[in-house]
């Protein structure tokens, strides 16, 4: 398992929104749920809209799943598994992420 890399501090997070981090050349969208205090990290690339935009989507829930809706064409991606709810062909890469001593840390997947 690779090392945890700090990408930003906890204070950079805005509850219920995403941000984009650069992790070893890969664009990663990080989301922070204000209610559950959970962090999620998935690839920032929207495979349907074909652009690096997912960190700018709206976070929410569909049933039990925590999701982000693509800002381009509004497909939902499960933040836990990376799966696209509308089109299971598409699956985002997911990344381990944690809050550690006030810092947001990730591991290259």
């Amino acid at each position, binding site marked *: 398992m690779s090392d945890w890399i700090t990408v930003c501090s906890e204070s950079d997070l805005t509850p219920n929104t995403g941000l984009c981090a650069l992790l070893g050349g890969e664009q990663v969208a990080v989301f922070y749920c204000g209610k559950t205090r959970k962090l999620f990290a998935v690839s920032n690339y929207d495979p349907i809209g074909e*652009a690096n935009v997912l960190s700018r989507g709206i976070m929410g829930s569909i049933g039990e799943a925590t999701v982000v809706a693509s800002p381009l064409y509004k497909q939902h991606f499960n933040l836990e598994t990376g799966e696209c709810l509308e089109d299971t062909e598409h699956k985002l890469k997911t990344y381990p992420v944690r809050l550690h001593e006030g810092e947001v840390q990730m591991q290259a997947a």
Partner: protein
Amino acid sequence: MSKQRVVVVGNGMVGHKFIDNLINHEKADQYEIVTFSEESRLAYDRVQLSSYFSGATAADLALTDREYYRDNGVNFVLSDKVVEIDRAAKVVVTESGRKEPYDKLVLATGSFPFVPPIPGNDKEHCLVYRTIDDLGMIKASAKESKVGVVVGGGLLGLEAANAIKNLGLETHVVEFAPRLMAVQLDEGGGKLLRRKIEDLGVKVHTEKATTEIVVGKECRYRMNFADGSHLETDMILFSAGIRPQDELARKFELEVGERGGIVVNDNCQTNDKDIYAIGECALWGGRIFGLVAPGYTMAKVAVSQITGGDELFQGADMSTKLKLMGVDVASIGDAHGNTPGAQSYTYNDEIEQVYKRLIISEDGTRVVGAVLVGDVDAYGNLLQMMLNDMALPENPAALILPSTGDSASVGLGVDALPDSAQICSCYDVTKADIKAAVAAGCTDMGGIKSATKASTGCGGCAALAKQVMDAELASLGYEVKNDICEHFAYSRKELADIVRVKQIKTFDELLESHGHGLGCEICKPAVGSILASFWNDYVLKDEHIGLQDTNDIFLGNMQKDGTYSIVPRVAGGEITPEKLIVLGEVAKEYNLYTKITGGQRIDLFGAQLHELPLIWKRLVDAGFETGHAYGKSVRTVKSCVGSTWCRYGVDDSVGFAIDIEDRYKGLRSPHKLKFAVSGCTRECAEAQCKDVGVIATENGWNLYVCGNGGMRPRHADLFASDLDRETLIKYVDRFLMFYVRTADRLQRTSVWLENLEGGLEYLRDVIINDKLGIAEELEADMAANIANYQCEWKTTVENPERLKRFKHFINSDEADNSLAYVLERGQRRPATKEERVQLVELVD
């Protein structure tokens, strides 16, 4: 086979309907059509004639135009009256001497206003109310008059009285009978109508027989009455009934009725088998039908007969429902209870001024007639019960009593109606038609209207049509549910009420108290918009930021590659050369693709996230503000150049447009809002396809609402006319806030209005007459919104904390490395997939 020649005499409402039906018939190519009109224009909507006084133009009223007739091979001759029929040679001759042979002749000559034979009735300023030209003369006469008298207190007389009252004249109605609308109303109904009309300032004189019109002392004329009294007036409008225009029939020996009217059989044929008569000139079963719907049915029958079909005319119901000077009046069937043995129930509320009388059959099982004044909600039910011969409920009185809480138990379940029941008489739409439309996927009134045309005529059936639709939706297992999404069991309107009444300030508060889950991309922006509409907080505050949709969250319009476009506000489309140069310089420096928008602004494309604040800093410093092009909010107020430069301009449209845009800029709403102001009726700003349109007239400003261009075009409705600026702004304040409060998510004003029960009339009642008593509140809400306005970009560029988000990566200053562009017509655009591959190869 050579074509059959069909000549149509009269191009009024029914003549045109006949032609329209024939050219859309499958055998249309077998006929050659010629029509003659005594009037100088092709058919127009006489039913809506009075709207000419509230600003509608002749073009608005037109039912057809020259192009349409030409495209369909219809020959027409205007301003030429047919004066002769040579039945043996089958030729008609016109006043100008033109001869036209026919195989089939259709008389659709309508009727003419009856002017009682009173000495002096032919003086100047003695007028009638039938054609657009008549209205032109009334308008002109009103300018030189202070007092006006309408002779005749029937339906048309009262409509005419309203018109001259609105023209600012002291208005009198003189009626020969003891009561108003004697044909349609009984004594009680007539009495209440009189009281209501007198409350509006119109003086009613009943049982007056005019004996002569002589020179007046105070006014231009004096009318002397048989009882010795008199009345002074400057203008006299005769509306003492109509007479069928049967002159040709009389002269050329077609059978006519004792009291006029061209006698026709069930085929709408006269006693000459090649001559038909339809509309108000025709006498069927001893009756004249003075309404347009039966005329339309006759037109359909005549087309069927001429083309070899077998449709028959079988009479028509003459029930009516209308609004006279704002007073609701309806008459159904045998309003006078002349049916032998008829019995009645009467409800008379002098406090609320409501009168209802229900007339039932001798055996007490059927409705035979009704009179309703002041409250006509029961019209649809009662009419359907009568037309479909339905049995009365156990307690018939309940049908006209005011509803008491459990109103659902009375009235008529629409389920009880047979499929053949005609719901819309203007367009002959049956219950079965509406059910079919629902089965084909319509789920709202907007859909029903475009699929069936139901309630797009007089609109009287809107409530009933909606009930039929709802019942059908329910029976198909649709739960008529307006929940916005899975997180809230409320509609947008209900959420808006909750937010407003409970003073909720954040999404989390609302979710906590009224929802569940985390929310989603449906409810979050909707609630974000509601919060912004009522409290107008800075949208990028921590507690609001996660609610903002794709474009709002970075205050720019996201393009397909994830970059943004920038649209600064250019109020009214007016811009100085200096500012134009700034835009050019910024675009050049950041290599932005530049395009003029439809809303008279300039759109700069291709800015990356980190560039947005840099660009906006420049723009804000140069005096620009955000244009809210990214928001579901007020966008632009388009304007023409108006009276300051234009040779034709009537008023300063640019100045007013700028004022309006500055007032409402930034207002967040259920969907985007577009405005326009035109400086004259040439309408170069295209205000009639906007949510709010304003057009200058000689007498002030006309206000149009709920128009739309775009995907589902809708012509705006004339809402009020000849307003001063202050009143117009007041109405727009109320209108916008009422829309913000009650519309569904992403519902443009056009669709909102189509789904608003009661339609335009109701909207006027709320906005102009303050029927709901909320006008002040709406204005206050708007005032608060305006007071809290800020330029979101100014706030953002001045706040370093906020600017942190405007970076592609939180942990690097690099930009998105996947963007690729190609040059086209001297500017860049995103590369397509194929082009990208080539670009990569080139780089390698």
